[in-house]
């Protein structure tokens, strides 16, 4: 099962590329010029999002490097205990919404300390595999728009995240 899934994943990009370029050639379109034209737009977008990325990166760095994250973790420990989420996972739950690479590094640390095949190690892996970096995504996606009031996007993201985290732990308990 996991072999089939990973083969499909590996084939995804080559298949899309062949499909689009092949279709272009079939339609006798000037694919090279069209590619260059579009690529210019891509570079433009990349430069445009740079200020937003810098803002997000330093905001996250401020929270993590100052030790504020550790403080919140200690504060929340009793609550997580109450709802049956292992204490070792709190840092993951707090870090995952803001930092993709940070939470990946954290997953590695958690698995080194607690083992890969126990509840904690597996639940940490499932969280990385299923829960998104919601604050990062919100800031980045709305960053390229004129929107100031993001309405229910925040509630939808947070609700999905909380349920996803809880589901990760519960599923790992039973599967």
């Amino acid at each position: 099962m996991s072999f089939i899934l990973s083969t499909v994943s590996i084939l995804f990009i080559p298949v899309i590329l062949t499909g689009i370029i092949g279709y272009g050639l079939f339609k006798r379109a000037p694919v090279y010029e069209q590619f260059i034209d579009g690529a210019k737009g891509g570079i433009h977008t990349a430069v445009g999002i740079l200020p937003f990325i810098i803002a997000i990166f330093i905001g996250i760095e401020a929270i993590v490097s100052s030790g504020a994250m550790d403080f919140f973790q200690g504060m929340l420990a009793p609550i997580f205990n109450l709802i049956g989420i292992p204490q070792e996972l709190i840092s993951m739950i707090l870090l995952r919404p803001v930092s993709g690479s940070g939470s990946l590094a954290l997953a590695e640390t958690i698995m080194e300390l607690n083992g890969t095949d126990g509840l904690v190690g597996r639940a940490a892996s499932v969280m990385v595999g299923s829960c998104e970096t919601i604050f990062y995504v919100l800031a980045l996606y709305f960053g390229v728009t004129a929107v100031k009031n993001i309405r229910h996007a925040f509630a939808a993201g947070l609700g999905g995240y909380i349920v996803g985290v809880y589901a990760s732990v519960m599923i790992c308990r039973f599967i």
Partner: protein
Amino acid sequence: MMNYIWAAMICVGILFSILNGTLHDFTSGLMESSTRAVQFVIGLAGIMAVWSGIMNIAEKTGMIDKVATLALPFIRFLFPHEKNSDTIAMMLMSFMSNIFGAGNSATVFSLKSMEMLDAANGKSKTASNAMCMFVAVSMSMIQLVPITVVKIRSDLGAADPGDIIIPSILAGLISMVVSITICKIYERKSRHEFYS
């Protein structure tokens, strides 16, 4: 909204650095993270250019319209008022890239989609329903193979590194249903406000 979140992150950071006596680390962290941000974007710029180029071919040859028509039922449910086939195609590519674990490509398509939705929303300061739904679905989109975490697990000697794939998909699906439901509830509520 963003103003407050961002300012709070920085201020809380500074406050805790003072309390913990780690102001020095704070300053060097600030420098490092801004450098990392630039490196990240430069890395992203390459793949962004590639996908924008490829999608431009697909758009000009009319392939996008064909794919968009195929996915119409799914899009109709999530985005009942979306008519623009370029936007639909861009959103679909973003979802697909997410599913297949092409993270950087997904970012590219998502940002393009947001720009298009923003234009359709008349650059308003208030997010449209479509924008909220798109962000909510993107945030909870499942990934078939979370390749990096599987790699880490196999490096650390897990018995079966891939045994978290099915649980991940399950947890992802649950969180996706919740996100979409929350969006739909708010959409209905705001519609009542318009009429009353």
